[in-house]
Every structure is written in structure tokens, then in C-alpha cells.
């Protein structure tokens, strides 16, 4: 069977033939051509099968409304951001480094006070270790004479 004949049979089934003469001609063919009749029967059975079992998807809303929502979403995503940029006031930017300097100054001042206190305390307090068991002694600090004395007992003749 020719391809043209097959296409004509399909068009006849879909009622898409251009003229009445073509319809009559194809109908006559189906009546006398057994092979064409089998093809027609097969195509018709397939179409009936698809019509009864093809799933139908229904939109929850009208088609226009559904597609307009998608269009608006695309426009919204592609539009440039209109959020105003965060601008730090000039005085914050000017004072921010000063805050760092103040922290450094406080740190230095604090360490200076601590060191000064430590030295003041250490002038009067000292650590003494007797390295020999039988060696003992006393110690004192004379502020008036500016002198710390550690007295070692039990050792003569240096």
C-alpha cells in the first residue's frame, strides 16, 4: 500500500479530507480494498482505545488566570531589586576607627595600671626559697631606707 493511500485513510478517519470527492473515493477504496479496510479498522480501534483511557488533566482555575500567574512570577524575578541600599551615616563611619583606637588605649592604660600596681606590690612582697633545710631566716622591707633585707641564719664566714 502506498504511503499516500495510508495518509488518505488516516485523513478519512479523522474527517480531514479536503473535498467530498476525496471522501467518496476513499470510501469506495475501503469497500473494495481489503488491506485498506484492515488499516482503517486498526486505526479506528486505536483511536477508540486512546479516547477511553487517555488521562485528562484539569486546571484548578481558568487557563488565562493560570498562565497570567506564571507570567507575573517571571516578571517579578527578572525585575531589578528595588530595595534601598543600606547607607551608614557619615558620623558612624568617621567614629568607627575612633572606637578601635579607644579600645587600644583602654587596653594599654589597663595593662599600665596593672603593671604599675604589680611593681608597687612587688617592692614590698618577695618570694624567698630556702634551698637548704637547716637554713632559715627573716626578711623585711624598709621603705625609709629603700632596702629589702633577707637575713640568712646558719651560714657564717662568707
Amino acid at each position, binding site marked *: 500500500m502506498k504511503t499516500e493511500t495510508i495518509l488518505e485513510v488516516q485523513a478519512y478517519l479523522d474527517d480531514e479530507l479536503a473535498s467530498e470527492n476525496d471522501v467518496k473515493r476513499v470510501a469506495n477504496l475501503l469497500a473494495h480494498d481489503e488491506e485498506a479496510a484492515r488499516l482503517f479498522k486498526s486505526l479506528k480501534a486505536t483511536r477508540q482505545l486512546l479516547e477511553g483511557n487517555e488521562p485528562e488533566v484539569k486546571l484548578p482555575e481558568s487557563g488565562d488566570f493560570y498562565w497570567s500567574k506564571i507570567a507575573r512570577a517571571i516578571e517579578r524575578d527578572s525585575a531589578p531589586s528595588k530595595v534601598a541600599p543600606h547607607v551608614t551615616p557619615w558620623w558612624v563611619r568617621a567614629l568607627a576607627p575612633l572606637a578601635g583606637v579607644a579600645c587600644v588605649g583602654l587596653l594599654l592604660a589597663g595593662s599600665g595600671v596593672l603593671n604599675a600596681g604589680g611593681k608597687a606590690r612587688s617592692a614590698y612582697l618577695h618570694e624567698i626559697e630556702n634551698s*637548704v633545710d637547716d637554713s632559715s631566716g627573716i626578711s623585711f622591707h624598709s621603705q625609709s631606707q*629603700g632596702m629589702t633585707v633577707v637575713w640568712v641564719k646558719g651560714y657564717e664566714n662568707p
Partner: protein
Amino acid sequence: MRVSPFLSSVRRSWPLFFALIALGVTSSFATDEKEQKIQAKLIWGTDEPKPANPKIKPVDPKLKEKFSGIFKWKNYFEVEEKHFALAPEALKKVQMSTKCDIEVRNEGHGMFEVRFLGEGKSLKKVRQVIPPGELLVIAGDDKNANAWFVVLNLE
């Protein structure tokens, strides 16, 4: 947003400002970390007159006045005098006599560890800040009611 010329110049000066602070901090630490010169003396306190040994001399009047304000002896004689320098964390052993030595460690920031050794034995260890102009004295009784003193001070 345009920044005024004044603010712009202020911003440009920040690196210089921080550099000056860093320089000051560094130099202050560097000052603390310099080598320290120390004077150590072995002194003999007694009520007896000056011995014949020409190497033994009376202490200077200022030190004698300080000692007389605290101790009971009439005379104080200088037996030995040593000068040495200590870098931070450095340790030095200094012989003050044939029988006694001191080991001095500069711990930095004015703190010193002084160990007194008699005949090679460690008898006393003292950790003490020695402020400029003040004395650290390690002392003990000597024969015949006399006394010995090891005096350390910064130079």
C-alpha cells in the same frame, strides 16, 4: 554617596595614626627589654676598727647612713664590688668571695631572681623587683658578732 574632602583626609590619616601608636607600643616594650646593669657588693659589718687589709675599704657615706638606720654595727667595710650586665632572661653567676657566689637572673620588667650560694650550696633564693635607687640585701651573722651583707642595686 560623596564624602566631604575633610572626612576623606581624616580617613587617609588613619594608617599614619595607627603606625604611630604601634611605634609607641613597640618602643615602650623595647625599653623594658633592654640589658640591665647591676652592682653587687660584699660588705662586712663590725664594731671593730678597719682591718689592715688594704683591699678592704669603708663603704660610701650614703650606704653607711642607710645601714646605720637599720643595723646595729658601727662600721661597714666593702670587701668586694662587682659590676655586671644582664639581658632579659639572662643568668649570671658572680663570685663575691672565695666561699660565696650569687646567681642573678633578669626576669624582665625589673624582676630579678637572686640565688645565694655558700661554698657551692644554694642557701637562699629570692625573687624580687629591684626598683631604681633601692637595694636588695642578703645578709647573715658572721663570727665574733659581726655580719656580712651582699648588696645588689641597679646602675
